[in-house]
């Protein structure tokens, strides 16, 4: 995994004379105090993070948290007051005019909240724009634009105007326009916020599809926690120009760094985010096939449980035995293998809890978590699935 974007100590202050306020900010003056006394707005305060190649990095925060400012710094629509932004190792803040134009033309595409489409141009005219600015020949850019429009599912709409399209379709044009340049990095500034919920869901799924194919590095801005956790490989939560926490969605959900984030993620449907591996436990008791019946009874008795999973010497899951069956088997002289119960459920570590709920409700045994080779990883108690719902 290589680092694509590396942001170091980025600060952005809006106002007449940003540099003068910098020292106050470093002395720890609050955003509000600085605004009241100097009229300067602190957009970003000493922000550092990295985005890996091919990763979808979501920046989440409420309005005014600086998330859009941060995205706009990544293609220098906002010039940082201080700090460095390395893309592929070179600091874009130091780029001159021409280097910056080339960077924007080739390396980074942007999708806007209100689409930002050129209303005087047709759909294909919009998609061709970036190529046109780069000086690509008429024929070539029309070919590329058509192909890109196919990717976003807009074939046949080439010569319509944006005004003739629905909101969702307009944003597809916005996405196609950004993709046509084949940039490594895609900046998406609340791209789906202006869409109604059903269309938004479609667009999210479509973005996941497109991303699975194209593997761009995406920086995605949103105020919607569910959207953030659905799309993001990693998520950064911002507040007042500061990144409060960065992590994979499960991490933020399971261990919010502070009350603010805990509050923020409260509304998240946890069952869609938390996976089997997040709630599974290493069982205290585990019986190997070669151990025999008496060991099994003793394991169950010491741990106060009524059933136990049985694995072979390679830790592959073989089955489950209950205490009643085992005691009966000792009396009847049967072997462990003969009394194995196979009617239990298994799941993989990456399964969402949502899918486990029906199983946990109706089955009487714990759920076994196994890897691709059927190796035993842990168990999920039925009660912990239900506990995750709260």
């Amino acid at each position, binding site marked *: 995994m290589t680092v694509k974007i590396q942001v170091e100590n980025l600060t952005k202050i809006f106002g007449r004379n940003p540099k003068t306020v910098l020292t106050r900010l470093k002395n720890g003056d609050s955003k509000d105090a600085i605004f009241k006394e100097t009229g300067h707005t602190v957009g970003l305060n000493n922000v550092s993070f990295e985005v890996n190649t091919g990763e979808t990095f979501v920046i989440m925060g409420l309005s005014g948290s600086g998330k859009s400012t941060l995205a706009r710094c990544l293609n220098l629509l906002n010039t940082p007051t201080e700090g460095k932004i390395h893309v592929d190792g070179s600091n874009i803040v130091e780029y001159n005019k021409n280097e910056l134009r080339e960077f924007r033309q080739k390396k980074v*595409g942007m999708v*806007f909240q*209100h689409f*930002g489409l*050129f*209303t005087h141009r047709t759909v294909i005219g919009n998609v061709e724009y970036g190529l046109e*600015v780069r000086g690509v020949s008429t024929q070539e850019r029309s070919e590329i634009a058509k192909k890109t429009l196919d990717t976003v599912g807009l074939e046949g709409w080439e010569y319509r105007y944006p005004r003739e399209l629905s909101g969702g379709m307009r944003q597809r044009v916005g996405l196609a326009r950004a993709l046509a*340049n084949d940039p490594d990095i895609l900046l998406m500034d609340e791209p789906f916020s202006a869409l109604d919920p059903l269309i938004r869901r479609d667009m999210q799924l479509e973005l996941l599809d497109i991303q699975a194919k194209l593997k761009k590095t995406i920086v995605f801005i949103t105020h919607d926690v569910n959207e953030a956790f659905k799309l993001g490989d990693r998520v950064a939560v911002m507040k007042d120009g500061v990144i409060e926490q960065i992590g994979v969605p499960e991490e933020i959900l399971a261990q919010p760094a502070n009350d603010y984030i805990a509050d923020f993620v409260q509304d998240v449907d946890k069952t869609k985010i938390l996976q089997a591996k997040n709630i599974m436990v290493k069982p205290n008791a585990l019986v190997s096939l070669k151990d025999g019946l008496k060991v099994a009874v003793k394991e169950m008795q010491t741990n106060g449980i009524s059933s136990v999973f049985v694995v072979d010497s390679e830790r592959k899951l073989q089955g489950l035995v209950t205490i009643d069956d085992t005691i009966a088997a000792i009396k009847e002289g049967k072997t462990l293998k003969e009394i194995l119960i196979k009617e239990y459920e298994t799941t993989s570590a990456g399964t969402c809890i949502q899918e486990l709920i029906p199983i946990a409700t109706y089955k009487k045994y714990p759920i076994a978590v196994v890897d691709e080779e059927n190796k035993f990883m842990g168990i999920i108690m039925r009660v912990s699935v239900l506990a995750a719902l709260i």
Partner: protein
Amino acid sequence: MTNFPAAISFKIGIYVEYFVKWLMKYYGNVFDAIGASILWFLLNIEKFLIWLPWWIFVLVIFIMGWRIKKFMAGLLYAALLILIGGFGYWELMMSTLAVVLISVVISVVIGIPLGIFITYNAKIEVFMKPTLDAMQTMPSFVYLIPALLLFGLGKVPAVFATTIYSLPPMIRLTELGVRNVPKEMVEAAHAFGSSKWQTLVKVQLPQALPTIMTGINQTTMMALAMVVISSMIGAKGLGMEVLIAISRIDIARGFESGLSIVILAIIIDRLSQGIANRYKIPEK
């Protein structure tokens, strides 16, 4: 204590006079050259319009009215033109039209770049705004005097005075149009690596075009409004007829020439507005 004290007295006008005289003395040649070239264009346009058979002109206006508005509108405009001809003002109308046309062309050539320039230089606006206000509110007679001194009697000072009066809406509306392009659209243009020039030509100007067209419409109307006044310094045309009618207290002549100007104004306004509307970008 009620009268304004005589001790407080400013004489600024005299310096303006010095300035104009200084211009005349040292840059007289420049103004002569400008005047000569304006006159050359003006005479040729006028000559062409008068040379044009009357029915072709009527036909062109009819077709324009039909295409831009509707059939009946075209028919109405043609009939109104014939009415002006019937008053005996055909050639005078063409002279007036020539002055208006050339003033509009000069206003467009100066106004659009200046309007764009102001958009990019917010500081200039502080000084531009009162200047533009002054150009429009200063009684036109006042700058007829220096125009007379610099260009002499006749059509050229008329064009000069008309242009000064009709230029402000062109500048204002160009600026308004460019400034009102949605911020996100301009950001998008930048985000895809457009140069300033590309952003201007490919995004800002096309977006501002409807407003700019409205500016041209306004400019044309302002120019037409100056016609009567500019005839005071000897520009032949419909305005001259009005002026003569006033001096002779000739009600009939005054009415006919006045009505002709109104008709001309209506036709030009409807046609140019119709063209402007074509460039409107529907929102939805």
